[in-house]
C-alpha cells in the first residue's frame, strides 16, 4: 500500500544501488535535514493560514481572501514581505544575544521534530529515551525567550521574558508528570514502543479516568508552555504590547513566529502520539469490518488528523478565552495542576502495577 515508509524505503534502495552504502547514509542525512527544514517552513505557513481562518470563522468575518484561492497563499505573501523587511537591532541592545535568540527558538523546534513518528515506520530518530529527549529539549526554548527579552533593552520585553520564564519552568512540571503517566502505562520511553502499545486501543480510552485527567492536564500545560492564550503572558498584547518580541522585526520576528507555530504542532503531535495512538488507526474491539476500513486509511493521515484536531482545540482556546493574570497562572499550576498530576501519577502507577488497564 502507498505510504510514507514505502517511499522512504524506495529512496533508500535506489540510493544504495546508485552510490553505495556509505554515501547513501550521508545523502539520506542531507535529505532528512532538508525534509525537516521543509516541513518546518510548510508547517509555519499552513498553521498561520489555519489560525487566521479559524479565528475569522469564530469572529464572524471572512479572514484573508485575496491572495490565491480563498486566500490560501496569504501566508506565502506575508513571508515574502517579512523576508525583504529590514531586521532592525535597537540601540543599546546586546547585538549577539539579540540576533541569536530567534535561531535558538527555531533550532529547539527543529530538534523536537526528530523523535516524532509521522507515519508507520517513518521516524527520523527512534531513540530509546524519546520522551525524556522531548522534555529536555523543549525546556531549552525558554532560554531563547529570556535571551530575546534581556537583549532587547526594552522594559516590556524584559517583563515578558521574566513572565515566560516563570511560566514555562512551572508548567514543564505538569506536562512532564502527565507524560510520565503514559510512560508508566507503557513501560518504555521509546516513542515507537508507546505507539505499539496502543495497537488495540488508545491510552486515552485504555487508561481509565487517570489517563483522561493526564490528557487534560497535558493540554493545559502545553498550551501554557507554548505561550498560547489563555496563557500568553509572555506576549500579552494588551499589557506588554508584544512582550519578548516587541523589538523584533522582519525575518527575525518571523522566526519567532514560525517557532511558535512549530511548537504548537510539536506539542500537539506529542499529545496525539502519547494519548491518541500516534499513527495507529482507531479500532473498536472485535468489529473486524470496521477495523479493516480504519486500517485502509493511511497512517500518516491518522497522525496528521489527530494532530490537527488537537491544534484546532488549542486555537479554539485562544480565540475564546480571556487571559489569566500572572499570579492566577502560577496558582493554577502550583496549587491545582501539580498536586492533581502527582496524585494522578500515583493512581496510574497503581493501575499499571495491578494491570487494571485494558
Amino acid at each position, binding site marked *: 500500500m502507498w505510504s510514507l515508509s514505502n517511499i522512504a524505503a524506495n529512496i533508500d534502495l535506489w540510493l544504495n544501488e546508485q552510490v553505495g552504502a556509505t554515501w547513501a547514509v550521508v545523502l539520506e542525512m542531507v535529505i532528512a535535514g532538508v525534509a525537516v527544514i521543509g516541513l518546518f517552513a510548510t508547517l509555519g505557513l499552513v498553521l498561520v493560514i489555519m489560525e487566521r481562518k479559524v479565528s475569522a470563522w469564530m*469572529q464572524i*468575518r471572512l479572514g484573508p481572501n485575496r491572495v490565491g484561492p480563498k486566500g490560501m497563499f496569504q501566508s506565502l505573501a506575508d513571508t515574502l514581505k517579512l523576508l525583504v523587511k529590514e531586521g532592525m537591532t535597537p540601540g543599546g541592545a546586546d547585538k549577539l544575544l539579540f540576533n541569536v535568540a530567534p535561531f535558538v527558538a527555531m533550532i529547539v523546534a527543529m530538534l523536537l521534530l526528530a523523535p516524532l513518528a509521522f507515519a508507520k515506520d517513518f521516524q527520523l530518530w527512534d531513540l530509546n529515551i524519546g520522551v525524556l529527549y522531548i522534555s529536555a529539549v523543549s525546556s531549552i526554548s525558554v532560554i531563547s525567550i529570556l535571551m530575546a527579552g534581556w537583549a532587547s533593552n526594552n522594559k516590556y520585553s524584559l517583563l515578558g521574558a521574566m513572565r515566560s520564564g516563570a511560566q514555562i519552568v512551572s508548567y514543564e512540571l505538569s506536562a512532564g508528570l502527565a507524560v510520565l503517566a503514559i510512560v508508566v502505562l507503557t513501560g518504555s520511553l521509546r516513542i515507537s514502543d508507546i505507539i505499539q502499545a496502543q495497537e488495540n486501543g488508545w491510552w486515552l480510552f485504555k487508561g481509565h479516568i487517570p489517563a483522561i485527567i493526564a490528557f487534560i492536564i497535558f493540554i493545559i500545560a502545553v498550551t501554557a508552555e507554548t505561550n498560547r492564550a*489563555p496563557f500568553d503572558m509572555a506576549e500579552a498584547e*494588551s499589557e506588554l504590547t508584544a512582550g519578548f518580541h516587541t523589538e523584533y522585526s522582519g525575518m527575525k520576528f518571523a522566526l519567532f513566529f514560525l517557532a511558535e507555530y512549530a511548537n504548537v504542532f510539536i506539542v500537539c503531535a506529542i499529545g496525539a502520539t502519547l494519548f491518541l495512538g500516534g499513527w495507529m488507526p482507531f479500532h473498536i474491539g472485535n468489529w473486524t469490518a470496521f477495523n479493516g476500513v480504519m486500517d485502509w486509511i493511511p497512517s500518516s493521515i491518522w497522525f496528521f488528523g489527530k494532530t490537527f484536531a488537537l491544534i484546532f482545540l488549542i486555537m479554539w482556546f485562544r480565540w475564546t478565552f480571556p487571559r489569566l493574570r500572572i499570579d*492566577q497562572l502560577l496558582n493554577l499550576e502550583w496549587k491545582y495542576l501539580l498536586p492533581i498530576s502527582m496524585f494522578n501519577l500515583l493512581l496510574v502507577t497503581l493501575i499499571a502495577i495491578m494491570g487494571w488497564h485494558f
Partner: protein
Amino acid sequence: MFEEVGTTTEGDLIINMGPQHPATHGVLHLVVTLNGETIKNVEPHLGYIHRSIEKMCESLTYRQFIYVTSRMDYLSAHINNHACAMCVEKGLQLEVPPRAQVIRVLMDELTRIASHELWWGAMAMDLGAFTPFFHAFRERESINDIMEETCGARLTMNYMVPGGVMHDLHPNFQRRVKDFLQLYKSKVHEYDEMVTGNVIFQNRMKGVGIISAEDAISYGCTGPVARGSGVSCDVRKHYPYEIYDKLQFDEILETGCDSFARYMVRVREMNQSISIIEQLIDNIPEGDFQAKTKAVLKLPKGEFYSKAETARGELGVYIVSEGGTTPYRIKFRSPGFSNLSILNRMAKGGKIGDLIAAMGTLDLVIPDIDR
C-alpha cells in the same frame, strides 16, 4: 487626599504605557512605577489630543458650537449634542416639541447601547479575548446603520440642534430599530456565555480595582463607575430631562465596588436602554421635530448649566453669556476626566493585568478627557 506621586526607590521599574499602547484606547500616557509585576504608582499624563474645544466654542455661534462637541466623547456624540442643545434652550427658554423630545431620547439610548457594546468588546480585548469584540461590533453596526440613515453620519452625528432635532426621522427608522431589537435579543445570550459566565473572566474581574463609595464620591466619579460602587447618580433619574420622568426604567446599582460590579452595571444598563426604546418606538408622537427659532440665536446675559447622562457618566455644560451671539465662556464637565483621576487609587498594589482590567472598566474615551 491625593497620594504623593513620583516617589521611587531603588529597583523600581518605570514604564511609559502609552501614548501608543494597545490598552490605553487612544493617546493616554500612563507613567507606571512597578515593583516586579506589582504596581506602585500610576500617573496619567494628558494633553496628547487636546484641541481646546472649549476655546473654539467661544468663537462659534450657539448653533455652530454644538457640532464641535460631537468630537469630545465621540461614542456619545448624540448625548453631548443633547446636553449642549438643552443648555442653549434653557437660555432661550425654548419649549421642545414632544416629537423632538422622543426622538432625542431614542437617539440617546441607541447611542448608549452602541457605546456600551464597544466598551464590552474592548473590555474583553483588554483581558486578552479577541472574539467578543467582533460579536459586539455586529450589533453596534446595525445601530450605526440606523444612525446613518437618519443623521447622515455614523459617529459624529450632529443631529441635535437648539429647539429639537435637525430633520425628521427616516421613514425606515421604526422598522430598522425593531429589527435591531430583535437582533439584540437573539444574540444577547452570547454575551453571557462568552464573557460574563467565563471563569477566567470572573476571576480577573472580581475583587480587583476596588472603588469604595466614599472614594467614588470624593473623586467625582459618575456614571457606571460610581453606580458600580452603589452610588446613585443617574442624571436621568435625579434630574430628569426631556421625557425621562415619564418612562419606566431602573437605575442600575451594584454594590460590588470592584471591576466586575462596573462590568455588570453596563451590561444591565444595555437592557434598560433596550426597554426604554421598546416603550418609545411605537409611541413617537406626530408633530414638529423642531421648535421655531430665530435665525440668529442670542442668549440673554447670564449663566446657564445643564447636564445629561452620557454612556460614561454625567456631562455638564456650563455657558456664560454676555448677551451676544457667541458664548463668553464654555466649560464642559466631562465624566471621563473625573473617572480617570481614580485610576491610581484603584490600580495601586495590583498587578499589571489588574491595571488594564481596571482601566477597561473606567471606559475611558481620551478625547473626552482632553477635549
